[in-house]
């Protein structure tokens, strides 16, 4: 059989694998909804959780589709579709694929349009194996780990609650810091331009891209707008008793925050031509 990165049989195999991944999510959804019924949790709460999670997911999921499109240039659509439907991300998949190509003495750009089945299989092995830790480590650790946490909670309930909040705050603080990571362009730029060395994962070639000195403020303002909107939603819920807003506040604030990036980028600038 002659190989092609978009051969129908690749889509068939990937479709079967993704069906299995989907089946696990459906299985756990049914299992947890049944359990909610058994312990007489509020049906409306379960329904609201389902609807809110679905709405919340739309924008980030669309962003993942964009990454499939980006990777499809050299690897076809089937493999990026598989890899980005399971654990992975654009940066990881691009690095893993580029390293595999480099290991074969070539680059992804050189492989585009002329990749052989052997090269494709080699790249697929590296992409699959290099990130396969959580999938087996969770079964090994989770039960004992959670048992330990429960014992810990029984000893000191107050500290256990603080610990849980600390986990969430610790994660959020890292992302708050990340939002500010390009602010230093304000004082590190020369003649209003900040040079960034960008390595093309496809070709391995490095090129210099210039950003405006104020470009690092775009994510900061997007975050502030999104946060301010969340505060407004909180006030509306409190003062006008708009309880329905509680379920939709996060996706609404997120989408408006994302939309605000369009005028903000025009105003503060991005890449300088």
């Amino acid at each position, binding site marked *: 059989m002659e190989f092609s990165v978009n051969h129908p049989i690749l889509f068939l195999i990937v479709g079967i694998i993704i069906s299995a991944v989907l089946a696990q999510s459906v299985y756990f959804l049914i299992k947890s909804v049944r359990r909610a019924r058994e312990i007489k949790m509020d049906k409306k709460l379960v329904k609201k959780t389902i609807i809110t999670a679905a709405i919340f997911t739309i924008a980030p999921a669309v962003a993942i589709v964009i990454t499939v499109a980006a990777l499809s240039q050299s690897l076809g659509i089937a493999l990026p579709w598989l890899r980005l439907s399971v654990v992975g991300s654009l940066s990881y998949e691009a690095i893993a694929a580029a390293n595999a190509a480099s290991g074969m003495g070539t680059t992804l750009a050189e492989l585009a349009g002329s990749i052989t089945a052997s090269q494709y299989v080699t790249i697929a092995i590296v992409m699959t194996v290099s990130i396969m830790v959580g999938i087996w480590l969770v079964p090994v650790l989770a039960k004992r780990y959670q048992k330990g946490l429960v014992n810990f909670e029984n000893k000191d309930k107050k*500290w256990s609650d603080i610990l849980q909040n600390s986990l969430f705050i610790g994660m959020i603080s890292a992302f708050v810091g990340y939002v500010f*990571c390009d602010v230093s362009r304000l004082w590190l730029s020369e003649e209003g331009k900040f040079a960034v060395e960008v390595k093309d994962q496809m070709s391995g070639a490095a090129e210099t891209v210039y950003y405006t000195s104020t470009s690092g403020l775009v994510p900061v303002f997007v975050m502030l707008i999104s946060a301010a909107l969340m505060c407004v939603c909180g006030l509306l819920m409190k003062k006008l008793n708009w309880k329905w807003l509680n379920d939709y506040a996060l996706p609404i604030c997120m989408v408006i925050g994302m939309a605000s990036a369009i005028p903000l980028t025009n105003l503060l600038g991005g890449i300088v031509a």
Partner: protein
Amino acid sequence: MKNKKQLSYMDTVHRDGTVWNLILMVILLMFPVVVGVIFQAVPDWEGVGKGLLATAPMYWAVGVVEVITFIPMLGAGGSYLSFVTGNISNLKLPCAINALENAKVDAKSEEGEIISTIAIAVSSIVTTIIIILGVILIVPLTPIFESDLLKPAFDQILPALFGALGVALISKNWKIAVAPVILMLVLFIFVPAFNSSTVGIMVPVGVVFTIAFSRFLYKKGII
């Protein structure tokens, strides 16, 4: 030995999660094998070795740290699902946190376990369906996604997400949030090594620092 009726709900979550994850791991590993058999292609073993050596050690180390960091936040069912479907810190975990906040349930309770599992399962299903639609419509959609008009919006998805989610959580826990937020701001603003590609590594650092700081405040009777 416990019989089936004696297993608690949590026991069954761990049992089923283990079976599912190990089966899916084998299925995922079978992809390159099946493709190789169908197209009668043998991998370039030197390329595999060099590629793995350049990629796996770092991502395996990060994977171990992520498992330890995220399990208490995701819950049992959520962990089994999230470490198969991925996009944890940018999608599954915020989705679970939002669901727990809206439901006003304790993340460590059985209700919390159920709510976070439902949120993560729904999020995984919706993501998979949207990617399938995206793959089907990739040709007409690509110019829209890559348009200069929409690109800035999709580039800023994380600031928009963590602005809204962060203000809700930080305002409720501001005493424990002050020091880690200041630390991360200083590191990301003034140390060039900390940038968008290191945020994943900084999550466990932020978590460990926040726990240590909270413990200090707790011992001092401030919280």
